[in-house]
């Protein structure tokens, strides 16, 4: 008699077991959001790479993503202030990247605010992730 209840409980618990997302899934959710704002949107690794290297100038010490993450996100970076190593951003070099949507959004929120001086748009995030997925 208790079996159906257990099944329901298990089914309810499965999302809580943190089924890790893939970079593709996280990319697609941003693509979908960007397409809602701009019909026909398609992510571009080229635009993502330009965004990654662009000197926004909001922060004097950290003008661009590449300031700390280097020009090649498949390599380890170095925090310009603390001099600490930063693991590669590209999933090809670091399989943990872009597998936890909460973590991804937290760092977009924090770093965009500081480096770009505003929140990044869904389109910018989609391009950014597209670039990182492709970079080797």
């Amino acid at each position: 008699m208790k079996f159906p209840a257990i099944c329901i409980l298990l089914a309810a618990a499965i999302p809580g077991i943190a089924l890790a997302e893939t970079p593709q899934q996280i990319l697609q959710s941003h693509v979908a959001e960007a397409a809602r704002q701009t019909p026909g949107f398609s992510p571009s690794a080229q635009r993502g790479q330009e965004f990654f290297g662009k000197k926004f100038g909001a922060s004097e010490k950290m003008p661009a993503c590449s300031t700390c993450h280097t020009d090649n996100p498949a390599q380890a970076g170095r925090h310009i202030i603390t001099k600490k190593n930063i693991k590669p951003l590209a999933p090809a070099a670091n399989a943990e990247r872009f597998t936890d949507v909460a973590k991804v959004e937290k760092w977009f929120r924090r770093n965009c605010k500081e480096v770009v001086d505003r929140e990044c748009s869904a389109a910018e995030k989609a391009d950014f992730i597209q670039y990182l997925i492709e970079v080797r």
Partner: protein
Amino acid sequence: MGGLKPVRVWDLPVRLGHWLLAGGFILAWLTGDSEEWRLIHVYAGSAAMAVALFRVGWGFIGSHHARFSSFVRGPAAALAYLKSLGSLSPRHYTGHNPAGGLAILGLLALAIATGASGWLAYQELYGDWVASLHESLSHLLLALIALHLAGVAAGSLAHGENLVRAMITGRKQGATADDIRHSRPLAAVVLLVWVVAASWWLAQ
């Protein structure tokens, strides 16, 4: 206030430590999300934790009103005190009142736990969960600080005594016998040296 006059209650390490802890927390809180201010955040948080650690030791060897044995009472005493605040004759304590005493234990524990988890996160010794724990603890600490400030305001009004000024001058209303007579400036120098050394070491 019959028979009460301003007497020395808070020694220099208590006062200096209090304001260093407050300043360290404010600075660390404001710089928490910034990478550009990351080192300042680490130094400020380390200094706050170092002050809290010193205060624990000072709670055993400090002057009378600084000692835990003089102000840590049970939750029943804290409740009784809070109830008396609403009455016409609130019970006055020369040192910390029982509710404030409990808040101090919580504030010190949270300051140390927040600093320790922040240090672990900065050293990247464990996973991302340490950073999450650090954030949660800092929010708890902020909430308890808000409660502490509300208590200071309520106590100041109830007793007609400026408790913020007391934490600067060290003087409160009390009986002559409660006067600590010595403000321990040398221990305050030790505190300063300890905070500088500990935060320098922790930020490595």
